[in-house]
């Protein structure tokens, strides 16, 4: 049946090319749209995912990771005193204005971390490509990402600027750390962050990051932290999921991307369905002849389904590399498209199902085909 299906498809090469083009565009749209979505989600939770904290402690009721409500840092000591907590570190995050080289202002997201000489903080800059992030402990030291050059106009260590009117000197550059918001991330020491955010006072934090002691009962520690007034505690994966859910559902980002992906599937379905149906109509007398000669319906249906599966396979084979090309093109625009093996596998499955359903109309046509109709008809 595969040979017959292949030859029927290839007999009209133009029509076959249109079918493959339809499936490949569909595949590419699904991969890119879903990949963009997961890329955005990866970006949204990148700070959380990059941390080495076992638990994130924040103010109860915080909905958004980026817009966390600050609380008194004395909570740090309460958390640190809970059995099972090996270490607790403070983090202060908020948005503030930075001075651009041309004199303009740009909103940036300050991430103030506790820097201890010789130790790596639970949340620290990663993918460092220039400079020394250990210098973050110096007053006014900042680390920025060079891919944000288009906004910050900073691409060298030693660049000096102003943040909230206070001096800021770039001591290191990273590559690939981007905020989900339009504001570039600026790492700095907690004390320097407080100088950029005077409205929060000297004792405010937005998060306390917890490192558990070996063999500590994570659930028990989490429960004891949550028993403290006005605090909530999440594991890193839980925190990551919360922020992804927030951006996906509360902002409609998820719906937007998946709607486009669904449209891509519909496009592929319609194109393949139309191509298969027109091909079936073209060979209706031949299919009828086979049925007249005793071919079972299942055999004729297999021919049509085989054509659908061939279209799916070839369309995927063309569409998948196209998605990789789109990813490369989007990287230049600082957009991350997360193409994972799982996404490829799911998309391949969707493509097969899409093409199988597209063949339904053709299948119904041949099932209803009266073999007697081949006589002159």
């Amino acid at each position, binding site marked *: 049946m595969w*040979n*017959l299906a292949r*030859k*029927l498809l*290839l*007999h009209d090469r133009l029509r076959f090319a249109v079918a493959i083009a339809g499936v490949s565009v569909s595949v590419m749209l699904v991969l890119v749209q879903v990949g963009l979505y997961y890329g955005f989600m990866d970006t949204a939770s990148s700070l959380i995912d990059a941390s080495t904290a076992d638990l994130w402690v924040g103010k109860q009721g915080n909905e958004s990771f980026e817009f966390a409500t600050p609380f008194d840092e004395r909570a740090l000591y309460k958390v640190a005193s809970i059995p099972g907590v090996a270490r607790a570190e403070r983090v202060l995050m908020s948005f503030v204005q930075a001075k651009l080289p041309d004199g303009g202002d740009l909103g940036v997201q300050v991430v103030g971390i506790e820097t201890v000489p010789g130790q790596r903080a639970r949340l620290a800059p990663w993918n460092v490509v220039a400079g020394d992030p250990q210098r973050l402990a110096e007053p006014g030291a900042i680390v920025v990402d060079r891919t944000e050059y288009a906004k910050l106009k900073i691409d060298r260590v030693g660049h000096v600027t102003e943040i909230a009117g206070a001096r800021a000197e770039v001591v290191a550059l990273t590559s690939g750390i981007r905020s989900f918001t339009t504001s570039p991330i600026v790492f700095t020491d907690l004390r320097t962050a407080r100088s950029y955010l005077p409205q929060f006072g000297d004792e405010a934090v937005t998060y306390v990051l917890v490192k558990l002691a070996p063999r500590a009962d994570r659930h028990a520690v989490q429960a004891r932290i949550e028993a403290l007034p006005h605090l909530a505690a999440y594991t890193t994966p839980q925190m990551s999921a919360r922020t992804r859910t927030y951006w996906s559902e509360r902002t409609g980002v998820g719906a937007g991307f998946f709607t486009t992906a669904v449209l891509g599937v519909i496009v592929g379905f319609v194109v393949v369905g139309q191509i298969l149906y027109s091909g079936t109509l073209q*060979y209706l*007398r*031949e299919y*009828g*002849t*086979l*049925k*007249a*000669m*005793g*071919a*079972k*319906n299942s*055999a*004729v249906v297999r021919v049509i389904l085989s054509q659908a599966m061939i279209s799916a396979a070839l369309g995927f084979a063309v569409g998948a590399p196209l998605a990789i090309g789109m990813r490369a093109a989007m990287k230049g625009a600082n957009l991350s498209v997360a193409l994972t093996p799982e996404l490829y596998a799911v998309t391949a499955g969707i493509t097969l199902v899409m093409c199988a359903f597209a063949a339904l109309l053709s299948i119904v046509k041949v099932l209803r085909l*009266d*073999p*007697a109709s*081949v*006589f*002159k008809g």
Partner: protein
Amino acid sequence: MPAAVAINETFPSPAAHPATVARVVGVAKTYGSGEAAVAALADASLEIRAGEVTLIEGPSGSGKTTLISILGLLLTPTAGEVWLEGRNVAGLGERELPGLRARNFGFVFQGFNLFPALSALENVAIAIRMKNPRARGADAEARRLLDHVGLGSRAHHLPADLSGGQKQRVAIARALGGNPPILIGDEPTAALDTKTALSVMELLRELASTERRAVVVVTHDPRLERFADRVVRVEDGRIEAITHTGTRPTGAASATSPRSST
């Protein structure tokens, strides 16, 4: 002088004639109901015998195609019986009919109905595989059948590269796939020129004579009567006459060799 026989030959028993391979008894086909009912065929009985060529003639709309459709198990009669493999199969459902058709019938059509994307060999082989998905050596059998009809040298040609006569020979080879005892042709020569048409009929005649197949051909062309053992005249949905021609062209009398490649 050919002898005319009575209309609707009677059959005292299924085993009346040892060469009978199929028969229809009192079959009728009515389309629609009530005042809109149209009787395409009424009370038709006919025996099909091995080794015979039966020609079915009649004007357009006379019921010829309906008759062979019922005989070939492509159409369920409104009334009557269809005997095949020693039993009445008229009431069987679509689950059993494909197998019966595959074992007993090969069809040849006016328009050839070959897949244009497949070579001659592939067109014959696909029919063999469709009839019996477990068949081994379908390609070899297809080649043998093409050789049998004189087209072995055209096995890898597409239908577009073949003449009308060659295409019909491929269709005949395809119809022979699975070795059916009965071949049914619906105006198989209508799209061919005279010389080619006679050549195709020569081939069908030979299949009947030497291989003891029952060949049933629907035609408008009275020139083909010389190839037939019986001529069945159908008019207004009824068999009006069955004429035993008593003529069997010999190999020396035939105008062209059955293995010619036209």
